[in-house]
């Protein structure tokens, strides 16, 4: 759906993007992760044809963003991080304006708008003035606006920013729904716990450089250190403690209660699998073995730290 090749963007002397390349497959929910100023918004704006790259190229659904911007605009629904609304319009008029901007036949508008407002849970606000809506409602209305022409790709820049916890949860639910509908979604955020629940793929960007791009599961597998394991044993845990203390890759062993161990382990998933086999081979009865932590935040911290250390 999206292909980006060696994209760079310079503002004066500052390179906001430096040779960024990645691909977003059809139907995936792609989380674009990075700290403030990393280049997320710049990348998304280039994909939304709102900015021209200094060099490099990008395609959306086969259309190049700088040579065929109108074709790209028909394929995307873009929601910026900060946006305003026309406060002198009613909700239905707001949707009607954007629908006519996409040249949608307004004879079927009633059903279309009803469906969209039902999706974003604003059915009862159809005749309300847009400026009377809460921030969360405006975000949801903007999402409905993005969907008015049934785009193939949704580009959402920090869609949950500035929302209260309840509105965040609602927005997350909505994004999950869009994922289920088979839409390709690129969503940027620096709140990683939110993304980990809804994304199938992620791209991690730091100081204008792409550190990682690919499936979330692969990113987790790339974690090579700082992985905590929780192991529950049947019977006395002293033999297990002694075995683990001598095992290669184990940095620390902590006991929690009578039968639970927390192990700081350096190694990928294959190494974990070997550890389980070795524990069983050593005659230690295990009732459970699981990773603690190891979420997107850890992946992000590790990968960006690696880049900073280079």
């Amino acid at each position, binding site marked *: 759906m999206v292909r980006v090749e060696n994209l760079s963007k310079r503002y004066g002397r500052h390179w906001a993007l430096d040779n960024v390349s990645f691909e977003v497959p059809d139907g995936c929910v792609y989380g674009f992760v990075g700290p403030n100023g990393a280049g997320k918004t710049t990348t998304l*704006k280039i994909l*939304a*044809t*709102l*900015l*021209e790259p200094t060099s490099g190229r990008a395609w959306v659904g086969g259309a*190049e*963003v*700088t*040579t*065929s*911007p*109108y074709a790209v*605009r*028909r394929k*995307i629904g*873009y929601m*910026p991080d*900060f*946006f*305003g*609304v*026309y406060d*002198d*319009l009613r909700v239905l*008029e707001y949707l009607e*304006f*954007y629908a*006519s*901007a*996409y*040249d949608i*036949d307004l004879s079927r508008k009633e059903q279309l708008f009803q469906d969209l407002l039902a999706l974003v849970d604003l059915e009862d606000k159809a005749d309300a003035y847009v400026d009377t809506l809460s921030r969360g409602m405006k975000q949801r209305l*903007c999402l409905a*606006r993005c969907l008015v022409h049934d785009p193939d790709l949704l580009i959402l820049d920090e869609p949950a920013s500035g929302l209260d916890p309840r509105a965040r949860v609602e927005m997350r639910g909505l994004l999950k729904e869009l994922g289920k509908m088979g839409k390709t979604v690129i969503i940027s955020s620096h709140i990683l716990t939110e993304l980990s629940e809804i994304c199938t793929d992620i791209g991690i960007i730091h100081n204008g450089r792409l550190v990682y791009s690919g499936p979330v599961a692969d990113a987790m597998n790339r974690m090579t250190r700082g992985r905590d394991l929780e192991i529950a044993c049947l019977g006395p845990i002293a033999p297990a403690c002694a075995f683990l203390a001598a095992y290669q890759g184990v940095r620390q062993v902590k006991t929690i209660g009578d039968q639970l161990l927390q192990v700081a382990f350096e190694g990928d998933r294959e190494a974990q699998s070997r550890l389980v086999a070795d524990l069983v081979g050593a005659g230690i009865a295990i009732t459970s073995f699981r990773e603690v932590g190891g979420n997107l935040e850890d992946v992000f911290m590790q990968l960006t730290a690696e880049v900073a250390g280079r």
Partner: protein
Amino acid sequence: MKIQLPQINWRALRNPMLVKELRSRTRTWHFPALLTGYLALLAGVGLVYYYLWVRNAGYGSFGPRVGLDIFMLLAIFQLILINFVTPALTSNVINGERERQTFDLLLSTPLPPAAIVLGKLFSSVSYILLLILASLPLYSIIFFFGGISLHQFFILVCFYLVNAIAVGAMGVFFSALVRKTQLSTVLTYGAVLFLNLGTVAIAILQRISNDWEGAVLLFHTPLMVAINPVYAMLSVLAGTSGAIQVPLVGQIRQPIPAGLSHLVTPAWQTTLLVYGVLTVACLTITILLVDPIDPVDRLLKRRRAKGEEQNVRTAV
């Protein structure tokens, strides 16, 4: 045989920006308030002048002269009002969208920049057109006195429109050029002030110092005179004589540089031409400024990409 008439695609002609702007503009209380205030001012000027005339000359002086005078006063006053209202309607249309953070949403739609710019301009101009149309009944009273032909009146209304479009185009241009709405408003009013008063000051200086010697001429009319909207409007009423008696001011005669008296073009024709060029220039630059992807660059890239494709095909 059944004749198939060509089908007009009305949907394609519909400008969503224009529809939205008209809807927004006519919805607030500003709209009826401005219309009422505008008509009240115009009617007030006409009434006061007629009252003064009757007080000085008595009812026996009823005739074309008073009609022409009131008409001229109203026409001048209407032009000033149009030049005062149009910048207020147009000088913040683009940067206002930027300030409200609605511009990116707008540009991410397939709506071309030309449709955005023209929609914004024509919604403002249609507002002005409505003010002009609403003031027509006032002018119809003037016909009761006589002294003005329908032909002159029609040209005058057209001139108002062209003037409003030109001033509106300048407002839209400044609103796309600078980020701050206050600055674009100041710049637009500055430009309008220059066209209305600055040109007069320079023209007077040129007339006094060297009797138009060395002045830039446009169709044999000094430039500073040709681009002044008030003078152009008066030249409509002056007709072929080139001279007009302006109430409260006195006679104004079209300046004719020495030796060119046989080539004189009425000033309003030159002004319309200049304003037409000004409008096209302002709108073209505005459309280029608004487009996030440089259209020239886009064409060059597209051509380059086609060339590369052809090279690959040839190689295969």
